[in-house]
């Protein structure tokens, strides 16, 4: 098993909801563990070292999800809710050029509130919030590609 395959495995685990994966071959045994809270991956700085010795390429884990980060890990209430992208596409935070953002940091949101548009295959998808709370963080830049399940917003429920 080479480094690339291990990286692929980490990516796979990271995207899934598997807590732990062990692969055993002739002379090697690898265990990849997810951190308990996915949210902590989002807010932790990419340079932060990862504790587990079983993770050969820790940067891979954070790099896929971290878009905006602070220099040091931020203490965040563990009850934060992540709004994730339901599809692959292009993320837009406003209806069109010159229009206001659907939501900004500090805005209150409630179920049914449109938070962004994701354009996929020439289809324009208005993404509605399902929770009531306050937008704490916008994790993606306007007009950039997003992956399926990629965190878009952090919401503090109320």
């Amino acid at each position, binding site marked *: 098993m080479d480094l690339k395959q291990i990286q692929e495995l980490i990516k796979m685990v990271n995207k899934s909801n598997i807590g732990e994966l062990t692969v055993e071959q002739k002379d090697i045994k690898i265990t990849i563990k997810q951190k308990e809270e996915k949210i902590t991956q989002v807010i932790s700085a990419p340079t932060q070292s990862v504790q587990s010795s079983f993770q050969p390429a820790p940067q891979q884990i954070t790099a896929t999800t971290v878009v905006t980060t602070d220099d040091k890990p931020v203490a965040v209430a563990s009850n934060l809710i992540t*709004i*994730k992208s*339901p*599809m692959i596409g*292009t993320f*837009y935070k406003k209806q*069109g*050029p010159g229009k206001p953002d659907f939501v900004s940091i500090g805005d209150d949101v409630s179920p049914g509130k*449109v938070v962004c548009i994701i*354009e*996929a*295959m*020439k*289809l*324009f*998808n*208005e*993404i*509605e*919030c*399902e929770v009531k709370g306050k937008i704490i963080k916008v994790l993606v830049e306007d007009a950039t590609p997003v992956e*399926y*399940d990629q965190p878009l917003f952090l919401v503090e429920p109320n």
Partner: protein
Amino acid sequence: MPQLPASSILGFPFVELQSIDSTNKYAMNLVHTGMASHGMAIFAHAQTAGRGQRNKTWSSESGKNIALSLIVNPFPLKTFENFKIICCVSVAIANFLKKYAGDEIKIKWPNDIYWRDRKAGGVLIENIIKTGKVSSGNWQWAVIGIGININQTNFPVELPNPVSLKQITGKEFNTIELAKELCAELTTFFNDLISKNNNFLYEQYCNLLYKKDEKVKFKKGNRIFEAKILGVSETGQLITQHAIEERFDFGEIEWLLEKV
């Protein structure tokens, strides 16, 4: 409990407006205010701010064309099946136009309607998706905006190769009657999409594909290249071949069509 569409007839009720900024915007407002029902059609004789794809406008002479938005409940389709609705709508429009304009009606990937090398119509689909427990989201509504050139014979010069049904056939049409006929066509295809689990619509789409097996110029970033169009994948990617086979998502490449 998943909610089944109350009625499978598209185009009922049929709301006729003399003038509106955009039928899609009107329809989206109905959805947002809880006033929408499955099958509702919004027709406008004139659009003052018709919308095309993002950042583009759809211009159309007042009283001469079809500007129609349909509100549908896409259940049980999932968000990742969105190309199916593109197939369904494009194939329905193409079949409808073929009755008048003949077999030279084609679908230009992903969802423009062409006659020979000229654009006769376009589609703009907007969806409402709820995030939540289902990670792929919950597809609540689709608003299908359709613009078709019917009786217009003078077009602004900046439009790339437009054509109307009147220019193709030499005849004048009643736009309301045509729009209702189109709704009937869409009803048939939409019900097929929802009830039958087969590839019929996708196969039809592939059969109607504009420039299939022909060489076309594309632009990707700064690179201009010529490639043969082999087809479209079941998820909606354009499959082309030059030295190697490549697949593109919409937005990755631009068509470079010659002015006719």
